[in-house]
């Protein structure tokens, strides 16, 4: 059935072009007009940029819902209501981080260090308060400054979302967890909210250029656990918290 597949791909291609054009043109041409004044004049420049980014991506997903009616989104209220917490998620698709940004106005995350090298975009990431995963940015006193910034951000009601697997899962299985996120949560004395993401890999599969618009799909974000470890306890161990978190994700998966 190569002919059928070919005709199925036409709407996929059109939707992909429209969505990525909106995404890129927004960042390159429309948003800088708002980003620059917001950053200069707002009392908290990073928060202003985060809110603009949030608004842009909210529109991106509104457009996605309109263009891909066969995909529905189910995001539970307890996920939307999360604040002052570190959100730990599984990672399936490039859509995961932008979906989370579209849900939370005050957000921070750890971004692959190569994105910081992209002209304009890298600058925007830095000024928005995102943290580079690069070892150079997490060394020495800069590390403490970054952590103190995150602590303040969480105390003000923001969230930090992190994918402890570090990369997208190609087969839906959980990759080994990086324990760094749990150390950050401990430093900030913040609760951990475990959010299970499902379905984003069917809409935008890893390794593919096109959105999959022809299959019926449900994208679901679910709060599967809340942990408030006793960080100050004598027997506290990062490894146990990481293991407990992983176990909850494995039971869900």
């Amino acid at each position, binding site marked *: 059935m190569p002919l059928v597949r070919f005709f199925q791909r036409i709407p996929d291609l059109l939707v992909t072009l429209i969505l990525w054009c909106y995404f890129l043109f927004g960042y390159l041409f429309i948003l800088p007009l708002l980003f620059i004044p917001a950053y200069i004049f707002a009392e908290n420049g990073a928060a202003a940029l985060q809110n603009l980014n949030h608004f842009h991506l909210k529109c991106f997903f509104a457009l996605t819902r309109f263009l891909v009616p066969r995909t529905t989104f189910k995001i539970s209220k307890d996920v939307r209501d999360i604040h002052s917490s570190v959100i730990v998620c599984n990672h399936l698709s490039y859509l995961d981080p932008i979906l989370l940004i579209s849900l939370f106005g005050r957000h921070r995350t750890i971004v692959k260090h190569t994105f910081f090298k992209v002209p304009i975009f890298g600058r925007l990431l830095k000024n928005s308060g995102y943290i580079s995963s690069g070892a150079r940015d997490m060394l020495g006193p800069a590390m403490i400054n970054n952590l103190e910034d995150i602590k303040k951000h969480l105390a003000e009601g923001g969230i930090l979302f992190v994918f402890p697997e570090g990369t997208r899962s190609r087969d839906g299985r959980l990759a080994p967890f990086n*324990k760094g996120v749990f150390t*950050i949560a401990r430093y900030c004395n913040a609760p951990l909210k475990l959010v299970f993401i499902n379905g984003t890999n069917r809409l935008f599969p890893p390794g593919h250029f096109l959105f999959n618009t022809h299959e019926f799909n449900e994208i679901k974000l679910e709060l599967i656990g809340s942990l408030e470890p006793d960080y100050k306890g*004598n027997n506290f161990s990062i490894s146990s918290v990481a293991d407990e978190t992983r176990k909850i994700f494995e039971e869900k998966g």
Partner: protein
Amino acid sequence: MTRQEIEQEVKNVFHREFEIENPDMDADLRETYEFDSIDAIELLLAIENFLSTEISQEEKKQAINIRTINQICDYIEKIAKQRNLFSPA
């Protein structure tokens, strides 16, 4: 708190958090045990727990470039002395 207790607690932390038994007290942590900055933060937080005291931002920045376990013990000893928690053996 004595120097001996400090050394024992640091060894406990290494065993509990990093699965390292009987670590070499003078080995370079980055080279020998592949320590990174996140591990250093983890260690700092464990030190805070052990001393039951808050370590200031400036004190944390001083600790972040420590290389060996003996230096970690010196650092804890210095903080403990400043807070009158240290008693010479």
